[in-house]
């Protein structure tokens, strides 16, 4: 699966997108924290219950916003991570 970054998350990640292996959103965040340490401070919680900091949000394929770490992800899914205050 693919992770895309926008705005401040992109600044922190230093890339616009990257590929990860994960079956759930929680796994994806775990893998992300390991692969991009600069995003570590924006990923909180423990074990399977990892969540994004409240200033970031995640959308599954641009279709719906997701936060439950158990949200299943498929191989072709794209998770978009952006600043929580998207407008303004």
């Amino acid at each position, binding site marked *: 699966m693919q992770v*895309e970054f*926008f*705005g*401040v998350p992109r*600044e922190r990640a230093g890339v616009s997108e990257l590929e990860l292996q994960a079956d759930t959103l929680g796994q994806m965040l775990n893998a992300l924290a390991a692969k991009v340490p600069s995003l570590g401070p*924006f990923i909180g919680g423990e074990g399977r219950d990892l969540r994004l*900091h*409240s*200033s970031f*949000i995640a*959308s599954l394929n*641009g*279709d*719906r*916003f*997701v*936060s439950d770490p158990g949200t299943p992800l498929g191989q072709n899914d794209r998770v*978009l991570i*952006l*600043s*929580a*205050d*998207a*407008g*303004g």
Partner: protein
Amino acid sequence: MPFGYHGRYLRIDVSRGVGEYVPLDEMVLRQYLGGSGLGVRLLLDEGAPGFDPLSPEAPIVFAFSPLVGSPLTTSAKFAVVSKSPLTERINDSLASSGFAVAGKRCGCDALMIVGRAPELSVVIIDDGDVRLESAVEHRGATCRETESALRSRLGANFRIASIGPAGENLVRYATVSHDGRHAGRGGSGAVLGSKDIKAIALRGTQTTEWAHPRELTELSRSLSKRSFGPATAKYRELGTATNLLTFNRFGALPTRNFQSGSFEEAASLSPEQLTATRSKTRDSCVACTIGCEHIYSLGDGGVRVEYESLFALGSLCGVGDADAVLRASKRCDELGLDTISAGGTIAFAMECVERGWLDEAWLRFGSGDVLLRAIELIGSREGIGNLLAEGSRRAAYAIGHGSIAIAPQVKGLEIPGYEPRALQTMALGFAVGARGADHNRSGAYEVDFSDKVDRRHVTLDAVRHAIETEDKAALMDSLIMCKFLRGVFTDFYAESAEMLRDVTGWDVSADELRETARRIVSARRQFNLLAGWTPAEDTLPERFLNTPLPNDPAASLNRERLDDLVAEYHRQRGHSGAHDAE
């Protein structure tokens, strides 16, 4: 009189060149606070809904707030409130900085201007003493030129709000500018222009006291500290321009007069690309710890870049040449033009040309030179510019061919950079907005960018969320606090009550402020009812209701669904008929 207020406003009749202080009842201040709320209350008392907005008797109010002058971050703001010459409905636009602080130091909580000056003039308020001086020599000057010339003439400690050539020429979406910032929407610049007022210059020495100075200082420190945190990082580091690529990815970036929700050249307008070839500096309003203004170099100067200007003059007009978009934005600032309405009206005309409804073959999507030429013509009302200066709704009625279906406006106000089919809670916010299509008086897009709704298939459940954002905006715009601070509050109403208690000494609660917010929304509706509002106005142009977004068929909205949302909005607001506000 409570702390934080002077308890009076300064009413200036520019026909006679005189001003008088008018007392303000403490109950009115507590019920309407300041900014937008106080402004609309004063307009209602003055009978403004019944006046032609460009007539001498039509009042225009510059309202400050109890927080202005306090150490609270982002509080140096003022609201410019009048009947809009673009929509003929309520209009309140906010701007920031030293004018708010200096205006309040003139010993008043608001200024009201009525009448028409005998010639183009500047209103000078020197610590409360009012006089009129000729501004004929400044005719045609840009906003910045006017400010700098008047400060040289009157003294560097004067703060100045002015109009550009667009305001003088009564362009219906002309702005009032101060220190490079604009009370942008709805045409308050044309209202001042109709009074032959080029500028208001003021300075003062009269301060107000705070009820609980120690607590206020502590609260201000805590708020400032939080304003450096992650909740405002987007504004500090990238500015609103960063929305462009995000919106493009979500198919929500209005493109070529809303014919599409994504723009193939969006990347060239992104902050990343803008900084690749230009230097960038940051600036902030007076008394702000966030500093969201990102100023990009352009020629031998710079230009403030905001998402709304990039979208309106970029993707909406099909222009991907960043240099041209920045030049267009700068030119709008100089002329005193609202970039959203300018871009929206030009894009509408471009589509009319494309469809063969308007005989201006040069006016085509995609060219930066065409965009710049159109802006010049609008500012001077020359050629086709005279029609486009009227805004897209009036232009559509003149052009005919049913073009009103594609005029990108609600109640006459051009739609900002949020594609309504892709962001349907925002679509509702636009439809019911008292000021017209408006992302500042309704933050409904926040709901679309959350897990509360399915943004492309919203249900009636979205309505209460949209109402919440409208109420919150009404309170922020009346207190006044900058909306970019909104993410730092854990309990916005409770913290606002604390601020107001420390400033005024009132024993105000979060619940009272919720009621205050609803009262202000209701007063805006009352203004519109008196100005002739009808339920048919609460809708979107036909294009959004019968055509899905070409690149995203799931993003479709129909009249029945929008009507249901609007009806539910009025039901939840307790609106039962034509005379139900208040």
